[in-house]
């Protein structure tokens, strides 16, 4: 049911009514006792930049390695462009991979590294050299063809690895933590470059990452993985604004969470009784009364003031400011509620002498409020 919803949205986003380009069905992989990938289904469409996001050991890398052909599944199928690939060895697959360590051959020059894949396809020498030059132009490394990997900077090595994987014009490009080895500033810049290149070449990208910001910036669609299963699949906005579970809400960005019981579920509104009072959430479906449920609210969605703002209906909580963290563009306020729970609130620093202007400082009694439509209703 939920799958259908997401698929529809993806298709409308890409404007394509094609069959899925990559189709994964019932895929399972075990390492001894541990189930790394647990009976998963996934559809990816042509031209997508799809991110697999999760913590270490969640199975995202195993899934990628099965797509590349380095691991073979216990059960289930992977088909790419309509052809079943699950038992095809890596060297016969129409996929190429960019490795986290880049895996550039240290005994070959940049040019030889990039040409290596083409040489396996028995392509004429002139065509190989043309294609190598073209791809070097694309990644802006024209002068570096004779260099060895050891003579390159991290960012340059990353682009050579990308060029080497792209030059074979794969149907599917797999990227394993493509930016993890770069420093923070370079990573931000490269994120956009990578997305640009993907748009230019039009190849379907599947990116594995543990960095949620990277996944949000890069992907057209993403999947959050945990313990070998998908927790949620959707566009970055869908996942950030409408997480389905506590895990996803907490994994992507941060969320303040309240536990409670549903006491009233009307069209569009759900009222939940919690430790801190009754809270109202906008929700499209009806929920059975008496059910245990969680409410999440993101720090930036909370309004902080010293007086109760009557404009908003419901969702007022009283607390005391315990700590203020100045982060530059925003400040984080840690507010202790009467039940002892600490709530994070973030507010932009619009004017410079921030505390005085806003007038909120340590030990102040404050009121937290938010719109019912900002809150998220979460399962388990």
């Amino acid at each position, binding site marked *: 049911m939920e799958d259908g919803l997401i698929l529809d949205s993806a298709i409308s986003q890409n404007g394509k009514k094609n069959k899925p380009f990559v189709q994964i069905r019932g895929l399972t992989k075990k390492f001894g006792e541990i189930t790394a990938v647990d009976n998963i289904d996934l559809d990816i469409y042509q031209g997508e930049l799809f991110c697999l996001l999760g913590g270490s050991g969640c199975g995202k890398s195993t899934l990628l390695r099965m797509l590349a052909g380095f691991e073979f599944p216990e059960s289930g199928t992977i088909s790419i462009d309509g052809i079943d690939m699950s038992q095809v060895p890596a060297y016969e697959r129409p996929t190429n991979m960019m490795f986290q360590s880049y895996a550039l051959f240290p005994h070959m020059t940049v040019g030889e590294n990039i040409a290596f894949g083409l040489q396996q396809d028995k392509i004429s020498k002139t065509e190989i050299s043309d294609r190598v030059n073209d791809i070097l132009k694309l990644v802006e490394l024209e002068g570096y063809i004779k260099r060895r990997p050891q003579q390159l900077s991290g960012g340059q090595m990353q682009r050579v690895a990308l060029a080497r*994987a792209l030059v074979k014009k794969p149907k599917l490009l797999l990227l394993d933590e493509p930016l993890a080895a770069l420093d923070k500033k370079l990573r931000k810049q490269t994120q956009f470059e990578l997305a640009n290149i993907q748009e230019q070449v039009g190849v379907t990208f599947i990116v594995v990452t543990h960095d949620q910001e990277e996944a949000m910036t890069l992907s057209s669609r993403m999947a959050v993985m945990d313990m070998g299963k998908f927790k949620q699949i959707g566009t970055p906005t869908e996942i950030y604004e409408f997480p389905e579970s506590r895990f996803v809400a907490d994994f992507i960005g941060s969320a303040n969470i309240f536990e409670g019981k549903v006491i009233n579920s009307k069209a569009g509104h759900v009222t939940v009784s919690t430790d801190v009072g009754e809270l109202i959430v906008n929700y499209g479906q009806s929920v059975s009364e008496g059910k245990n449920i969680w409410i999440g609210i993101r720090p930036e969605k909370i309004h902080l003031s010293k007086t109760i703002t009557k404009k908003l209906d419901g969702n007022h909580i009283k607390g005391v400011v315990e700590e203020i963290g100045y982060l530059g563009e925003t400040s984080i306020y840690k507010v202790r509620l009467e039940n002892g729970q600490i709530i994070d609130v973030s507010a932009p620093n619009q004017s410079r002498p921030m505390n005085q202007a806003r007038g909120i400082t340590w030990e102040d009694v404050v009121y937290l409020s938010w719109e019912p439509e900002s809150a998220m209703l979460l399962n388990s």
Partner: protein
Amino acid sequence: MNAGKHDSFINSIMRRLQENWRTVVIIIPFIWLLMFFLFPFFIVAKISLAEIKIASPPFTKMVDWSDGGIMTVRIVFDNFLYIINDSLYVDTYFNSVKIASTATIISLLLGYPIAYGIVRSGPIAKPILLFMVILPFWTSFLLRVYAWMGLLADQGTINNLLISLGFINEPIRMLYTEFAVYIGIVYTYMPFMILPLYANMEKLDGSLNEAAADLGSKPINTFFKVTLPLTMPGVIAGSLLVFIPATGEYVIPDLLGGGNVQMIGRVLFNEFSRNTDWPVASAVAIAMLFLLVLPIIIFQYYQGKAAEDK
């Protein structure tokens, strides 16, 4: 008072030592090696240019003062000419190189997959296998050679087994042949081949093989284009560690080759101990050194490079 003076004397020595201890640390092993490693070679070189004499020591002096204070310098190249003109020595040289290089290649062909197999083993099997390769190294070299005497003899285990199984009627002659020498060298020097190879392969990034496969290269192509070139330092180090000592090997050709396999180390030993012809023995040693100087330099170069890589 005296004791105080003594103390200050010791103190000043200690202070000097503290200031110059680095020099002391370097100088002790340096002098030892100069004295007992390098200096002996010069004497051998000197003797190789002398003539045999029935005396003790059995060679002529290079610089002689005995003739009424007139210094005479005698240098003869006879020993080297003798070696070059005697086909026994020349043949022995070539035979040593042939046997050592063949044995090196056999060791490489066997050792490479063994080392690779160890590298590819699981976290429990790996240290055990590695240990099993090193273990024979700690037991006596001589007795490992001796073990093959029992296996290869006419009345030995292999012949007995083959006869009792009915494959042969007459024992095959294996001991005291070149074949036995090959087996002996390969058997005793194999750890020296496997260990540098293992060390080299262990450093290899496994994702390089995957990258090659991902780019469409079949396993055999990947081996020749990626794995082998990257393990060349290990191949060279291992091969030299087998080739150099095997060329000068004495025990193996003597015990397993008997009188039938002539190798240079054995000729040198016999020339020296039986014929007591020290000048010729020295000339043989110097000639052997010339033969091995290039491999030794290559080995040292790689050794230095490996140390820098770390």
